[in-house]
């Protein structure tokens, strides 16, 4: 598909009733927002991300998708930041609030965010109970993935085995091939809905050289990643639930919950009542919550996790270790958002590496004696 085909794609999706969302520049960063034309995408811009800092800057070439991640994952489309569940009067006959799941097509979903969506699906549907509200929103999504050709400095998907190339979980996927004046997209369908759209897109069948170039681009992107998660982190953290490093992190951590807000898999939420002034009507709302708040672990008498150290440990061990026990998979997809959006630059890969290094140090000193 020629580069101009992106507008055809947006048109086809709109004509089928989808509101099209993509990464758009806002306040020197990227947000996931509705778009009307491909011109609104951050063409030629890349994310200069570091621990504690994310800025959009001019990139080296005129690619549409060299930028990496908007600050939002797909989480807020399937698990909104707040939603009304029901309303009731004193008779407690609850009136269910219908889910307003408008069809949304997301253009430019990264492989790590596809993996995150699978993770959320496992949380809300993989256990003994299935959340029908989640399912209605999930079914309303059309996903156009983009395989990454360039990592941000905070990316570590290769070591989490979630990217930089999407194998499944999308309706369509794109590889952006830019070589001199030739600017094309390799389009792959991953569902029946995707094949219908693909049949109407301009362009010709892909040649072997383009397929090779796309694969090579993904390999190069994986090789260029500067960060990686240490091997065997699930067991590593379980062995070190009590470790001086948790207190060391807590000296930097502000318990601000930014990491949990930008994390595409952090699903924790709370339920609360909102009453009318006369108390006759009450609404039950579900809204995002964070394990970094003191109130999160409250039991009569006080919070279980009073120290920042125990809250940071809860977040990191849940993500990387106990998620496996609870949901049969990792809760971290390696998107690196928590690193970039942390106001003090705490780096989950570095914290895991520090604990791993202390274990190796112990083994070495053990060997010597």
């Amino acid at each position, binding site marked *: 598909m020629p580069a101009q085909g992106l507008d055809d794609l947006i048109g086809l999706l709109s004509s089928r009733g989808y509101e099209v969302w993509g990464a758009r520049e806002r306040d020197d960063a990227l947000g996931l927002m509705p778009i009307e034309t491909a011109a609104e995408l951050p063409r030629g811009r890349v994310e200069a991300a570091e621990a504690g800092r994310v800025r959009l800057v001019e990139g080296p070439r005129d690619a549409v998708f060299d930028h990496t991640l908007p600050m939002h994952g797909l989480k807020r489309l399937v698990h909104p930041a707040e939603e009304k569940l*029901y309303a009731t009067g004193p008779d407690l006959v*609850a009136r269910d609030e219908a889910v307003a799941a408008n069809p949304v097509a997301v253009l430019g979903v990264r492989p790590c965010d596809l993996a995150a969506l699978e993770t959320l699906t496992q949380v809300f549907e993989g256990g003994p109970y299935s959340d029908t509200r989640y399912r209605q929103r999930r079914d309303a999504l059309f996903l156009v993935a983009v395989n990454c050709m360039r990592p941000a400095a905070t990316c570590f998907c290769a070591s989490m085995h979630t990217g930089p190339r999407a194998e499944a979980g999308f309706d369509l996927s794109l590889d952006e091939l830019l070589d001199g004046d030739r600017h094309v997209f390799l389009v792959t369908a991953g569902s029946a809905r995707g094949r219908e759209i693909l049949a109407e897109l301009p362009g010709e069948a892909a040649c072997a050289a383009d397929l090779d170039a796309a694969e090579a681009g993904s390999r190069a992107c994986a090789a260029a990643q500067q960060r990686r998660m240490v091997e065997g982190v699930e067991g590593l953290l379980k062995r070190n*639930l009590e470790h001086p490093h948790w207190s060391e992190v807590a000296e930097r951590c502000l318990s601000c919950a930014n990491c949990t807000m930008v994390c595409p898999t952090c699903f*924790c939420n709370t*339920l609360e009542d909102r009453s009318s002034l006369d108390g006759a009507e*009450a609404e039950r709302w579900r809204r995002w919550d964070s394990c970094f708040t003191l109130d999160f672990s409250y039991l009569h008498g006080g919070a279980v996790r009073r120290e920042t150290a125990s809250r940071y440990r809860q977040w990191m061990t849940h993500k990387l270790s106990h998620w496996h026990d609870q949901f049969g998979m990792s809760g971290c997809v390696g998107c690196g958002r928590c690193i970039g959006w942390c106001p003090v630059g705490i780096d989950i890969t570095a914290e895991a590496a520090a604990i791993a290094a202390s274990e190796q140090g112990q083994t070495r000193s053990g060997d010597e004696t």
Partner: protein
Amino acid sequence: MTAIARSYQPPAAEADMLPRPFRVVARQQELADCVSLELAPVEGAPLGFVPGQFTMLYVHGVGEIPISISGDPSVSERLVHTIRDVGAVTGALCRLQEGARVGVRGPYGSAWPLERAFGRHLFVVAGGLGLAPLRPLVHWALANRHRLKSVALVYGTRSPDNLLFLEQLRAWAASEGLELGITVDRATADWQGRVGLVTDLLPGMLHDPAETVAMLCGPEPMMRFAAQALGSAGVPQADIHLSMERNMKCGLGWCGHCQLGPFLICRDGPVLPYAELHRLLTVWEL
């Protein structure tokens, strides 16, 4: 999740976040700050449950909390909860009068592994309000007394005026074959019974530790010490079961609040084997 924690998972309830309206049909002031509410559905079938399970109780405009079921499992038309006034929602529940409405979801969670006790000694250890989720188990055990070698209950509270269900316990001890041991942390002037920890009563009341199944509920430090003492006495770790408590918002495994390491207490618990808990219970602020 391991096979043992899953093996006695009861059938799943409807995955609905909407409460069902129930009515308070009887109210019993158990202690100065503690009330038992007997609930019946406004419409439709009563709620069946197995001993150890809990429900989410909703008070209009105040909030929703998990409360364990404390009544007789063979009388499902009377759903009993015993509640201590320790916060906004428990306070509102304790103030409800007969005829008032309560929203109910559930029942949720794992059950006491009753079948593991068949042909063996059942040893129940309760601390404070922890007796509430154990009472359905004792009801069941006494109704199935012929299938158990013995049924013992060790019960400790802070002071004599905190003892729950005392008349019923004494009646069971007198005529139903319950071996009852009661102890308090601090005596009052008129207290004739024992003073001390529940662990002090174990040596005298355990008959055959290797052939004993123990079930515990109470404050976490009490359960930790009692489980350690039972283990040291020779009760197999896999036969010691604890009912755990954590903050819970949904009861369905979706809100993340009730985590204890690898467990979601609402989904995998509240009843879990000590063999899987003992390492977690000694970790600071887990």
